[in-house]
């Protein structure tokens, strides 16, 4: 998105760690509640949620952690939180010095030494990091789109420049890439159909999703074992594991439970639009689908159009455009 909307941040889901979601009342927050921000007037521009902690980045360059991991630091443009690793993109120490990517153990509270650093050296990287919106190239995609960062070693992973990555999302065992033309690529493990190529085979290198070829996508999101993308026209495509109903397709486990299960979330959403949690359909006579190995078009209720989608490990949330 070209312009950052100055909205408010809300959160909901599992906050057994006191991840500063909403009021933090109790262990689960069932409806979106305002996020506690680091200080009065602090303008939150990026939130990255892991299972047990959340990283919040403000326009002033402050990154703050809340939950099982704590701590704060300045000079940060972007942050990406995972259980194993916290990655931050920091401006260089002196004016004009090179920005640096740092990987920290979440328990370190950003004190001491990072586990690993990488200085952005290439022109493309520095331009991207220096100019404009922090959302332009969000972690785990690195500025310059020549590489991305992974929570498992090797931390720094190059990308072929011809991919022209706009956005990159990491799932539990796979990765999704959205390029400048709106094409989607995937790679990694395919055991649960999360790559979308129609098989259960792994793909070691980025591979184009042929099923979506020619349909320009605006957003991609990766969950634990599933994938979602949103087209420029507001359609949602889902694929991967549906064991918990994360693809909104009929699933045996939910049919037996007879209710929609809300899983750990922690994904904050912007306040203006509508948020729906996609869990399961009820009473469908269709056969249960445990794995959807290539993209399926999802119909939203009331013909709504999607603006953005995000995935937890076993659930999906979609933000729709407000109806006009």
């Amino acid at each position, binding site marked *: 998105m070209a312009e950052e909307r100055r909205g408010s941040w809300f959160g909901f889901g599992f906050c057994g*760690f006191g991840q500063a979601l909403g009021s933090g009342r109790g262990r689960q927050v069932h409806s979106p509640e305002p996020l506690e921000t680091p200080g009065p007037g602090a303008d939150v521009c990026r939130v990255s949620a892991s299972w047990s902690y959340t990283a919040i980045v403000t326009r002033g360059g402050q990154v703050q952690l809340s939950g099982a991991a704590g701590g704060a630091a300045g000079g940060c443009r972007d942050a990406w939180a995972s259980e194993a690793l916290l990655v931050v993109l920091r401006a260089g120490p002196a004016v004009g010095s090179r920005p640096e990517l740092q990987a920290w153990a*979440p328990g370190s509270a950003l004190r001491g030494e990072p586990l690993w650093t990488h200085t952005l050296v290439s022109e493309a990287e520095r331009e991207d990091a220096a100019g404009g919106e922090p959302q332009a190239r969000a972690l785990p995609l690195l500025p310059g789109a020549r590489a991305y960062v992974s929570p498992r070693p090797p931390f720094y992973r190059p990308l072929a420049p011809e991919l022209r990555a706009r956005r990159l999302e990491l799932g539990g065992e796979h990765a999704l890439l959205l390029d400048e033309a709106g094409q989607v690529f995937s790679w990694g493990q395919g055991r649960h159909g999360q790559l979308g190529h*129609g098989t259960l085979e792994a793909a070691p290198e980025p591979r184009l999703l042929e099923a979506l070829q020619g349909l320009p996508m605006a957003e991609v999101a990766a969950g634990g074992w599933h994938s979602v993308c949103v087209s420029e026209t507001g359609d949602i495509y889902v694929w991967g594991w549906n064991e918990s109903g994360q693809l909104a397709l009929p699933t045996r486990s939910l049919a037996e439970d007879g209710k929609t299960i809300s899983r750990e979330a922690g994904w904050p959403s912007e306040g203006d639009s509508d948020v729906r949690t996609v869990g399961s359909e009820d009473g469908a006579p269709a056969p249960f689908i445990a794995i959807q190995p290539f993209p399926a078009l999802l119909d939203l209720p009331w013909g709504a159009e999607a603006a953005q989608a995000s995935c937890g490990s076993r659930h999906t949330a979609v933000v729709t455009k407000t109806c006009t």
Partner: protein
Amino acid sequence: MAEDNREPLAGAGALREALWALLPPTKEELVPELGEKVELGMARLLQEATELFCGGRRSECLQASEAILDYSWEKLNTGPWRDVHKDWRRVYAFGCLLKAVCLCDEPGNAPAVAEALKVCDMGLLMGAAIHGDILIKVAAILQAHLPSGKRPGPARQQPGTKKARNDGVPVPDVASERPVPRLRCPSLQHFRKQFLAPGRPVILEGVVDQWPCMTKWSLEYIQEVAGCRTVPVEVGSRYTDEEWSQTLMTVNEFISKYIRDESRDVGYLAQHQLFDQIPELKRDISIPDYCCLGDGEEDEITINAWFGPRGTVSPLHQDPQQNFLVQVIGRKYIRLYSPQESEALYPHETHLLHNTSQVRRWQQPRSSCALCAGLQGHQQPRRARGLASARRSVDLSPLGKRVISGHSPSQGGVSTGPPSPTRPSCRGLPGAQSDAGTCGLQPDAALPWHPERRDIAVRCCQGVLGKFTLRSTQGDGDAGRPVSPGAEC
């Protein structure tokens, strides 16, 4: 126990006491000791859950243990099973322990005790041993506090009076095929020299005559000893079929639905390490002396149980380990092909089913036998005709093991196996062990609870893939296969 379920369970307080007596006395000892693999967030949650537990805050502890189970279950489903770190399995088992004991905290709640036993079983199936295999002990106590394992309802039927199911599976004529040789209690040296080393199949008679299971086991006995225990069951005739799936149910439910009754579906308790889960049954069997001839350590021997009705069919496949199959109740037809004929058997090309043949109907079997419980038999030898040459060449793991095919017209096999140098819980897939590293593929050593097997069947229902040969191929055989997850506990 002849207790009336409408009244609070007598001795409910005794249950709680018995469970707490098993636990380590202090909070510090209760928290499992784990390495670095378990991340900060989970480490904190484990501490917190233990504190809640010791502080008597039952419902909060239940919530925390659910979170422990949710997250660790995801770890158990990430990557191949052999790569799942044992610490995560310990975490899962710990979550099961807390949850099970918390569930039993409420006096007189019989369904909660049954659920707690299910939870224990999940911890045993997917977790790793903690606190000296405490889940086994907890399960034993819970079982003792549940109503009797005997199936309520209509009078028990004798196996012989059960309605014969006509499922169109003909009983093969063994006489027309080349028989597997039978020997009575050969010496270890003779067995090794004539059969193990050259890789030739043989039926050994007289070896298991003294095993208690030969006289003790019956449906009633198994229900009494293990009726309330939760086990994985495969539903569907062949694991290459579209409708094939895996699910969890108690032994009582399995026997009632798939063994006693005329069920439309075939249910098979297959390749499950039942004897690790239920030690009482393990006391009824032994390990054949011949197993010591294997390469690995004795504690690496895996023992699987196979328990099914008539009509279970396993596609032709190759086991990754040398093994013995012991038929305790009923009979099983087994057809074998030499590993040299692997190419002619059209293995599936996907790594998932790479040990499985695509062929359904066989013209020229190499060897076959009907393995009956305690029976002797002699087949007329017949020369096998040549097999058609392969139309495609496929890489196969050069394990040099017998290709096994089997078909189970009836019930109750127990198989044990010689040790192998590698992790014994690998299932049915070549290349799953380090000794088959020459196989260029890296198939999963499957999770006992692996999502793919079930998902393949369901995926085919969606009319998916021409490339997958599952829809057009089936086979006959006895298979080793993983089990896929139902809902986690």
